[in-house]
């Protein structure tokens, strides 16, 4: 970790991620912070498909994809092999929300329980975007997706809240579980560096906007991500060794923005404005969360 590779690019341009996708920003920086002595495993998803279309790859570190639900298990196998060979490398697994909170959850839970020295990165764009915007366990309440459609009988869209995956991983008592947002760049970098410096299983839940699924202008990617946290909807925190009592909220807006500022910028929430109760409900959820956890703010 002593060397600085921030001026090197381990993720090459020419990939097929949509213009304005946040995922490559996240990946690019995690690789810069990890450096060349890194092996990546990747769950099936946008990131995997459009960065490795044979015979071209965007990866400049060793990279392995097996299937959708097993990035964590693949990483565990790679890590076991590095131990067998006496090598010391950063093993990083990338998974989207579907591959992490839904279909890949078992493998992830098993990997961290066994204590593999792996950094698992969830880049969470809040739906199955690669297959065309289907709802996942990470889709928030009120979001339109192609499987939580909005109509006369369902004016809300997804009727269930988002799975609190970082807390679930923290409850495995792993050394490090945190949420991060690339729009809060220094906080994001600090958490990645910290995670990389810790021995054992680490989990980082990074919010990643999707221009097509969230229905927003590509240039607004960072702006929207910033609002996710400045409205309080996506709080940034970290929990070490499952110690919820000493959970640390690492950023708190000086003045919270109303949730509607975040919602109104995205087509997936447009229908919520037909009934003021919906926006109020989301504001209430945020206020309740902060009333309960705000005390953990620890700059």
């Amino acid at each position, binding site marked *: 970790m002593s060397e600085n590779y921030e001026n090197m690019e381990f993720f090459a341009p020419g990939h*097929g991620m949509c*213009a304005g996708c*946040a995922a490559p920003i996240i990946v690019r920086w995690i690789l810069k912070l990890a450096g060349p002595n890194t092996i990546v495993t990747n769950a099936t998803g946008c990131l995997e498909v459009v960065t490795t279309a044979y015979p*071209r*790859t*965007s990866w400049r570190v060793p990279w392995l994809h097996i299937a959708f639900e097993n990035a964590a298990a693949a990483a565990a196998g790679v890590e076991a092999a590095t131990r067998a060979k006496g090598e010391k490398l950063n093993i990083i697994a990338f998974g989207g929300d579907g591959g992490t909170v839904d279909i890949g959850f078992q493998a992830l839970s098993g990997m961290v329980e066994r204590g593999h020295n792996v950094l698992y990165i969830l880049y969470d764009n809040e739906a199955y975007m690669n297959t065309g915007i289907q709802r996942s366990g990470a889709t928030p309440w009120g979001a339109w997706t192609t499987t939580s459609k909005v109509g006369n009988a369902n004016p809300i869209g997804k009727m269930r809240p988002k799975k609190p995956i970082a807390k679930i991983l923290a409850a495995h008592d792993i050394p490090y579980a945190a949420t991060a947002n690339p729009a809060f760049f220094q906080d994001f970098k600090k958490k990645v560096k910290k995670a990389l410096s810790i021995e054992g299983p680490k989990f980082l839940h990074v919010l990643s906007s999707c221009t097509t699924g969230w229905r927003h202008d590509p*240039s607004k990617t*960072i702006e929207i991500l910033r609002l996710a946290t400045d409205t309080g909807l996506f709080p940034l925190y970290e929990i070490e060794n499952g110690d919820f009592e000493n959970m640390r909220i690492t950023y708190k807006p000086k003045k919270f923005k109303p949730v509607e500022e975040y919602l109104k910028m995205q087509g997936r929430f447009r229908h919520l404005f037909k009934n003021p109760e919906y926006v109020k409900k989301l504001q209430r959820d945020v206020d309740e969360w902060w009333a309960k956890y705000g005390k953990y703010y620890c700059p």
Partner: protein
Amino acid sequence: MEVITRGAVIPEPGNSVENKTGTWRVFKPIIHYEKCIRCLICWQFCPEPAILKIDDEKVKKETPAPKEPLKRLPVVEIDYDYCKGCGICYNECPVNAIEFVKEEK
């Protein structure tokens, strides 16, 4: 690299640079160096990456800057071979030094 490798392995790291994704562009960012404070935010948030950070002494000196001391800092340059024209740089630039114009084909 051979046309077909065993197991579909791609042995050439980062050879996606062969894909010139600049052809996707509809809008084009243009940096106005006389306004650019070289904060690197655009470089930081470029998803391709298609914004280069140039740390060359000659380039740093010769590129215009709003204030002379800024010329000590690295210069950003857009690589239009890869820039898809998402406009994140334009949107995030704190001093409006990036213009975003319709691409002329």
